[in-house]
């Protein structure tokens, strides 16, 4: 046997061995932290973060998305788009059953859409361009749009459009339907038990439509309300997974160094949380663009990233996170430059009027960030007063436009038409609501660009429009963009394949397995 053949054989054996080593193993239980405790698990009725995280295992959407946000099959196995980009035809996967054994069909899709239009604010907005939805047969669903809608294929993720069992919800009072507390979906795990205040238990769906999956037997979501106690629970081995945002950021470096601990920042590509300061454009000094620009120059965002967020994340360049479509960094830049900030304030005639700043009541990291920004602004001569509230009080103040500067962070959902425009177009100015255009910025050119961008074809045209919009917005500074946040997921290294898509932990644990 020649040396070359021997080498080839050895290599082949080695490769087989390593492939075998990575072959998913079946069985085992994962304990993950959920914070705060979800108010319910019926994703079509409540959509806050923890609900999505837990229920993403129970419910499914038609599609899921890769880290590059390309659509992938889930309950729909294929899809086609007509040449005029107005008709989308989805072929549903056959042999899918609800957890109670009933088959999943196109009728469920039609029902879910009608229900979500009434109960899910984001789905309602996403579906606004849909003219009609039809089901020519049990496994085909056809969406006809009023006009082409660029991000349409990006709205089918489980949290944005979860499929609901028609046979359990039709004709019932959705608000009080008993299945809200014992949800039935098509997902890889079935709801088993919820001891309020303690844990939520899910067990493997033995009839899951992807053969061999899920690999885990059970998943426990542990409710631990105190951030320090959550860190200890991981340290003492009581939980295996700390999803992003479970612990205070200053604990992340310490926990990351623990034995057999793996950390990943992946799985946030679809959401791309972007933090900024709402600036009330309506009144006082902040109505002047130069004062808003001065704020951008005055704040040391690298300090915030390196010290407050422990080096995690990225300094934002504008209204779009760098992970979403049509992002451009060809925009005016605002480096940390207190001298320039002072000059701009002087030019704008700022005379020390009091400016109220509202930190976000999401825990210690946000409090510290509030203090750092306050100090930055005081350093350039601004008169800053911190207003402390809890989340409810803060939301009310922001919704009522009763603030000057307020911290926030929002998801972007992969496309500027879904998660960016809503914060800058004048049609999204509505008192009493949060997360729309609460800063009161109004620019007809921006309104037109976002209106055109949503329906423009082809893709290159959309890119052109959104690049222009980003330039104008960054020049006008309607809000002060701070950081693209990164919430690292901390877990034992034996937990494999936990995050496989751009939706991360919210996409369910169907690919995850334990290397015991």
């Amino acid at each position, binding site marked *: 046997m020649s040396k070359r053949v021997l080498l080839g054989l050895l290599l082949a054996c080695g490769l087989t061995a390593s492939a075998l080593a990575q072959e998913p193993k079946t069985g085992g239980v994962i304990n993950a932290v959920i914070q705060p405790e979800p108010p319910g698990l019926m994703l079509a009725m409540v959509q806050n973060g923890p609900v999505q995280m837990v229920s993403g295992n129970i419910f499914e959407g038609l599609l899921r998305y890769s880290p590059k946000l390309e659509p992938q099959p889930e309950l729909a196995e294929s899809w086609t788009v007509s040449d005029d980009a107005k008709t989308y035809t989805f072929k549903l996967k056959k042999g899918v059953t609800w957890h109670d054994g009933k088959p999943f069909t196109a009728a469920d899709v039609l029902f879910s859409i009608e229900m979500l239009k009434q109960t899910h604010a984001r789905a309602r907005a996403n579906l606004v361009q849909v003219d009609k939805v039809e089901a020519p047969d049990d496994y085909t669903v056809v969406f006809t749009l009023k006009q082409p809608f660029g991000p349409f294929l990006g709205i089918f993720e489980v949290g944005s459009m979860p499929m609901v069992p028609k046979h359990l919800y039709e004709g019932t009072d959705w608000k009080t339907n008993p299945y809200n507390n014992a949800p039935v979906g098509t997902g890889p795990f079935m709801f088993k038990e919820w001891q309020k205040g*303690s844990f939520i238990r899910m067990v493997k769906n033995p009839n899951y439509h992807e053969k061999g999956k899920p690999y885990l037997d059970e998943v426990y979501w542990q409710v631990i309300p105190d951030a320090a106690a959550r860190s200890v629970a991981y340290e003492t081995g*009581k939980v295996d997974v700390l999803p992003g945002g479970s612990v205070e950021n200053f604990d992340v470096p310490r926990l990351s160094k623990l034995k057999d601990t793996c950390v990943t920042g992946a799985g946030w590509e679809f959401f791309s949380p972007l933090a900024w300061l709402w600036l009330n454009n309506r009144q006082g000094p902040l109505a002047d663009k130069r004062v808003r620009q001065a704020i951008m120059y005055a704040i040391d965002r690298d300090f915030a990233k390196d010290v407050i967020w422990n080096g995690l994340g990225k300094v934002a360049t504008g209204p779009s996170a760098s992970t979403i479509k049509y992002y451009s960094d060809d925009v005016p830049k605002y480096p940390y430059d207190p001298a320039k900030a002072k000059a701009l304030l002087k030019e704008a005639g700022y005379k020390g009027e009091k400016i109220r700043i509202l930190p976000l009541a999401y825990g210690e990291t946000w409090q510290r960030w509030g203090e750092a920004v306050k100090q930055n602004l005081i350093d350039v001569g601004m008169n800053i007063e911190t207003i402390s509230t809890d989340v409810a009080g803060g939301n009310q103040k922001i919704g009522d436009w009763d603030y000057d500067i307020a911290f926030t962070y929002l998801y972007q959902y992969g496309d500027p038409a879904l998660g960016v425009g809503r914060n800058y177009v004048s049609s999204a100015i509505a008192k009493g609501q949060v*997360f729309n255009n609460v800063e009161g910025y109004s620019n007809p050119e921006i309104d037109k660009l976002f209106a055109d961008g949503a329906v423009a074809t082809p893709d290159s045209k959309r890119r052109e429009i959104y690049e222009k919009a980003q330039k104008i917005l960054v020049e006008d500074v309607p809000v002060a963009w701070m950081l693209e946040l990164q919430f690292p997921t901390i877990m034992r290294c034996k937990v494999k394949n936990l995050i496989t898509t751009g939706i991360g932990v919210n996409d369910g644990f169907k690919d995850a397995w334990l290397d015991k």
Partner: protein
Amino acid sequence: MLSFVAQRVVKGVIVLLAIVVLNFFLIRLAPGDPAVVMAGEAGASDQVFVQQLREKFGLDKPLPEQLFIYVKGIATLDLGFSFRQQAPVSKLILERLPATLLLTLTAFAISLALGVLFGTFAARFAGTFLDTAITIFALIFYAMPIFWVALMGILLFSVTVDWLPSFGYETVGANLTGLAHVVDVAKHLIMPAMTLGLFFMATYTRMTRASMLEVKRLDFVKTARAKGLSDGVIQRRHVLRNALLPVVTLAGVHAGTLIGGAVITETVFAWPGIGRLMYDALLQRDYNLLLGVFVTCSVMVLIFNLITDLVYRLVDPRIEFAA
């Protein structure tokens, strides 16, 4: 005695009604409404969504009508529905009641027993090293914030020596039964109960000590001594029994607050009790649930006040039941 109890119950109902009305308006004075909180958490809101939520919570009705509906419910023992948690308020409270009572009653028993014991020793050996040691010990636990004691306890007993679990009510997923389950719950209970108990223990120690020293100086103690009674008998039967009245008063007040009074301990140790339920309801402006917890706590205070009055009579027969 029966007429005393009956009259107190009638008064209690009137007080309860006043509490309900006051709380109803008080929590609505706080900024923030549940619809906006829920819309906020969903990361999206529009007019339809907020309006739907307001209707769901009954917030679209005029305030007096909301109050009328609520009081009518209370009269039929219906504490309302928590739309946030998708469950009747009474069910949510009852679910949490056992865990809370287990924690608070254990802490209460520990604190009262140890507090009175240490207080008695301190008074008996007033001015000695033992007295100073107990006093310092009590002051330290009284002065230390509960959350700090809790975290230090976790650091020492869970992280460093790994003797006790750091959170929860039982080992999740262990499915233990019988004695093994009791031992498991007991292990989880030790740290939260001690944390909560040590704080109250300090109060009872100080109170017992001060009260005993005061009673010791009174004439009837001198008489007892003159009669030739032994020191032990004097301390137990004459001094302690008379010195207990203020301790009973304090214990009565504490007992009334047992249900809602362990918010911090329950939060740090992830103990699934009512304190945390109340805290979450407050943050989320879950009005019905919050009012439900308040009503339950108020009823407990009223009941324990009544019990305190009855215990007074047992401790000091001179006290008569006067309505």
